[in-house]
């Protein structure tokens, strides 16, 4: 007869949620079943961690905010006109406001469409598409903001002053806000726009937030230097020469890119912090979504909760969980940057835990074949290869199989 196991009841057992007889039955089973006991130990450990959770009290300002919101939501609109039975003027007030708005809009529309144009100006507007020099001079008289010799693409543009208004910024520049101190852009420390080619620099007490077109923002932290390389609907690109930035981007993958001296960080829809130290080495820490870190045809796809390091002259590191053990991280550093080889792989495997799965997957194509076998065995403990992914395929680095397995690793990584 097949033995009954109790794995699905183990949490209830640990939390004393079962009847006395069930508790006793499972307790007896655990005495003799090593696999249930192992599982019980894991669940008990998870429960002990969860029990560290504490309750919290709000600050007094929360009730103040609630009261203010209730006052705002419940009180009737204030009015200077007392409500009287005779006129009911308070009820009339919204209609009066609406009438004023309609009148205002009608006035604007009238002046936009039918405003009187001086006789002198009418002639050039009516000329054919290629205005003569004489016509252009006449336009210049009407539109003093246009240079006398400027090319006028068509008549409607020529009579629209806003087309050259200094308030309308060039699309090839980004607005930035000063968060602290005095960040500088070239020589102009007060400018609040960063044009293509401009360098924004912060000192030890300065910070700035750049609006990246309409896809997000980047906070430039103290002691940093960034350059706007380019911005157009297909790609927005910054270069972080030194210091630290924190990017929050909501956009299709590969639209926002940051160059560093040692790698290129390609946004795949995410939030992350990127640091570049004096030597040019960089550290990427992703807090939401994914970032692809690329260099010389090599790529590390770094998910939220993971980090990746690149070192000048040593190349691109392997991503790792931000909370991995020091021993694991140091073994990985030996493998990535100190030619640690098989010895480092042994240490990596000996110190691994569940969330090191992301590192193990990235190591598959980076290790020798003999080590790849061991990495494979370690990774399947955490993430079962999906259908169609075989050991042989992974050993010969079949691209599709690697991708399929990576997707499964990422799913488990985020779902826990």
């Amino acid at each position, binding site marked *: 007869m097949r033995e009954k196991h109790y794995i699905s009841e183990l949490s*209830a057992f640990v939390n004393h949620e079962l009847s006395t007889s069930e508790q006793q039955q499972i307790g007896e089973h655990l005495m003799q079943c090593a696999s249930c006991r192992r599982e019980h130990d894991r*669940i008990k450990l998870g429960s002990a961690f969860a029990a560290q959770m504490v*309750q919290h*009290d709000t600050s007094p300002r929360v009730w103040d905010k609630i009261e203010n919101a209730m006052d705002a939501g419940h009180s009737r609109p204030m009015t200077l006109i007392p409500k009287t039975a005779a006129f009911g003027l308070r009820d009339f007030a919204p209609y009066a406001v609406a009438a004023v708005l309609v009148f205002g809009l009608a006035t604007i529309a009238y002046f936009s469409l039918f405003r009187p144009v001086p006789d002198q100006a009418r002639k050039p507007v009516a000329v054919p598409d290629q205005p003569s020099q004489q016509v252009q001079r006449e336009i210049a008289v009407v539109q003093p903001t246009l240079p006398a010799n400027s090319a006028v693409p068509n008549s409607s543009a020529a009579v629209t002053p806003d087309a050259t208004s200094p308030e309308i910024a060039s699309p090839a520049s980004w607005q930035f806000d000063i968060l602290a101190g005095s960040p500088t852009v070239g020589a102009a420390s007060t400018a609040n726009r960063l044009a293509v080619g401009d360098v924004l620099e912060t000192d030890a007490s300065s910070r700035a937030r750049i609006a990246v077109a309409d896809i997000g923002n980047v906070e430039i932290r103290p002691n940093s230097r960034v350059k706007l390389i380019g911005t157009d609907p297909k790609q927005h690109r910054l270069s972080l020469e030194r210091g630290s930035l924190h990017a929050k981007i909501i956009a299709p993958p590969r639209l926002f890119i940051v160059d560093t001296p040692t790698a290129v960080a390609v946004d795949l829809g995410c939030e992350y912090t990127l640091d570049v130290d004096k030597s040019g080495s960089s*550290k990427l820490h992703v807090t*939401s979504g994914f970032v692809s870190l690329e260099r010389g045809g090599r790529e590390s796809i770094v998910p939220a909760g993971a980090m990746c390091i690149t070192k000048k002259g040593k190349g691109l590191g392997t991503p790792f969980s931000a*909370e991995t053990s*020091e021993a694991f991280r140091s073994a990985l550093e030996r493998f990535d940057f100190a030619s640690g080889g098989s010895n480092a792989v042994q240490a990596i495997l000996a110190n691994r835990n569940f969330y090191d799965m992301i590192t193990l997957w990235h190591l598959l194509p980076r290790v020798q074949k003999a080590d790849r076998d061991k990495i494979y065995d370690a990774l399947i403990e955490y993430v079962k290869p999906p259908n169609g992914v075989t050991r042989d395929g992974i050993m010969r680095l079949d691209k599709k199989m690697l991708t399929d397995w990576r997707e499964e690793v990422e799913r488990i990584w985020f779902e826990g």
Partner: protein
Amino acid sequence: MERLALMTEIPTKSDLLAACRSGDREAMHALYVENQRRVFSVAMNYFGGNRDLAEDITQKVFLKLLVKMDFRGDSEFTTWLYRITVNACTDEARKMNRFVDIAGIFDLGSFGGVQQLMAESEEVSAAVQRAIAKLRPKLRVPIVLKYSEGLSYQEIADVLGCSIGTVSSRLNRGHQALAAKLGHLRGAL
């Protein structure tokens, strides 16, 4: 004597709710004081200790509670309160789209500082908070209700509108995920 007894009688939950419905601001404050910890703690633990976000959620939940007052008495008041709190957290996480960070939760500071920080005992609970915030909401909510609020499996099932078996299975998976993720901190417990 009878009057004195009436004056000193502690108002019941239904008295308090009735007073809130009639717009009694003191009753509303009393209801808030009695329940703020529940709402705020769930939100704090759901969002990995992000205080600002948890305060926003608390404000939203109490505004809904005190302005709409649509508690119909179909369940225990606290069950209903936990349910709207969990829904508010889930909605907020959905709005934030993608994965719930929540600026700063996973910011572990400078190069090489991670493990030194973990060695600090208060950092163990911070690591636990972060690990819980990274669980899938399906697993995270029962863990928070069980360990922050001390609810029984039956009470969690009532809040979530599912069976005890489902609660048990989600807690099993939640415990396993936490053990795997935080195993290296075993010695700090």
